[in-house]
């Protein structure tokens, strides 16, 4: 099982959890397993073509999966997937 860190904007879709354990041997499998268990995350993570949404960054440990093998990147037990959406809060 890999650990998936859930950013604040997605927490409502996973029942308020900060992190989840999810199974799968690749980034795509792990994220689809998250989406299967928490259907509200499906449209937020995945584009209609099944790829990752462009505005969602996913890191395997500290590396952007886009510079690895994307959704095909292998994930082992003990790995952490970090989901990072853009945030813009600050001034007001």
């Amino acid at each position, binding site marked *: 099982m890999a650990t998936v860190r859930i950013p604040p904007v997605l927490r409502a879709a996973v029942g308020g959890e900060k992190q989840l354990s999810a199974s799968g041997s690749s980034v795509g499998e792990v994220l689809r397993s998250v989406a299967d268990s928490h259907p509200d995350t499906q449209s937020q993570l995945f584009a209609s073509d099944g790829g990752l949404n462009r505005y969602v960054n996913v890191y395997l440990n500290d590396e*952007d999966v886009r510079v690895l093998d994307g959704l095909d990147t292998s994930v082992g037990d003990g790995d952490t997937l970090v989901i*990072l959406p853009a*945030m*813009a809060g600050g*001034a007001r």
Partner: protein
Amino acid sequence: MSPSGAEVLRQIKSRIDEVDPAVVHEQVGNGAVIVDVREPEEWSAGHIPGAVHVPKSYLESRIEGAVPDRSDHVVLYCASGNRSVWAARTLIEDLGYENVESMTGGFTLWKDRGYEVATPRTLTAEQRERYSRHLLLPEVGMDGQQKLLDAKVLLLGAGGLGSPAALYLAAAGVGTLGIVDNDEVDLSNLQRQVIHSTERIGVPKVDSAEQTITALNPDVKVEKYSLRLGPENIMDVLPGWDIVVDGLDNFPTRYLLNDASVRLGTPVVSAAILGFEGQLSVFKPYDGPCYRCLFPVPPPAELAPSCGANGVLGVLPGTMGLLQATEVVKLILGEGDPLVGRLVMYDALAATTTEVKVRRDPDCPICSRHPEAISDEELGVFPDYEAFCAGAH
């Protein structure tokens, strides 16, 4: 009877290698470390260009900061060539430096020969006191403090992030602070916007911030921009600033800022906060990724928490704004490892930080191109950009 001071000096001179200013002149910038051991007032009146200043009275405690490697070639000088001989003896016989010379005739002879003299800009007595804790740090020192005083830093927003950043940058002696904000101080701001105060509710934030900054440090010049940054004014505001502190509250302006700062080559120290969590990174054009490399497109409105009022723990922008100020000071000083190509996430409730790598995107629509190829019309442009977060703030 003990020998006289003059006799001891003669004995020491017989053991120390002395070198003529003509030879030292050849060695400047040529591998040798030239060390001025005179008093601060003498150094301030003029010194050999490229020399480092380690007053003889602080030699033992400070020489390692200036010359860490004891095998380096070191040339010491003073005013006439005597104090530097005593200092050379200390370096060789007490501290184990292996290759030390003293310059004959000192700075007086150097000047008589007509060689170049550097006259450092000096701090006033009040500045030396105000910044004394900086001056004691080898990584800052007199040169670093001058860099801070010469620096021009633009703060986008005198709000949650800008307030603490502005306060500490002013305290540190950053000489010119620009503040862009078109808001007025509101009671609900004061839970986190510590540069303002209860009595200034209703006052424009730029004026309130200026009052606090000037009271804290009269060295700091404040340039106020009471406007909302947009495509129509960004190229009037941004040029001329060394570093931008981004505490913007909406995506369209973040992309606009990114594109303009890449074109101008201006580093942006960026932070964002939401709830109990913050993000921080430094976007240094062409040295590292830009904001579009990190987030090629903004999220849809339902996932863009900037579009509306959200809760934020009051201390969190303090933490993130001070991390921004720290990165700004590091960039000005050229010290340490800036947060370029890295993004830190801070979770206040968990008291944890997570760091991820941010890569330059070779196909980035902005920073993969030459800065001059980026046109005014393209700055901040995005499909459905305004509609995406209409009136976002």
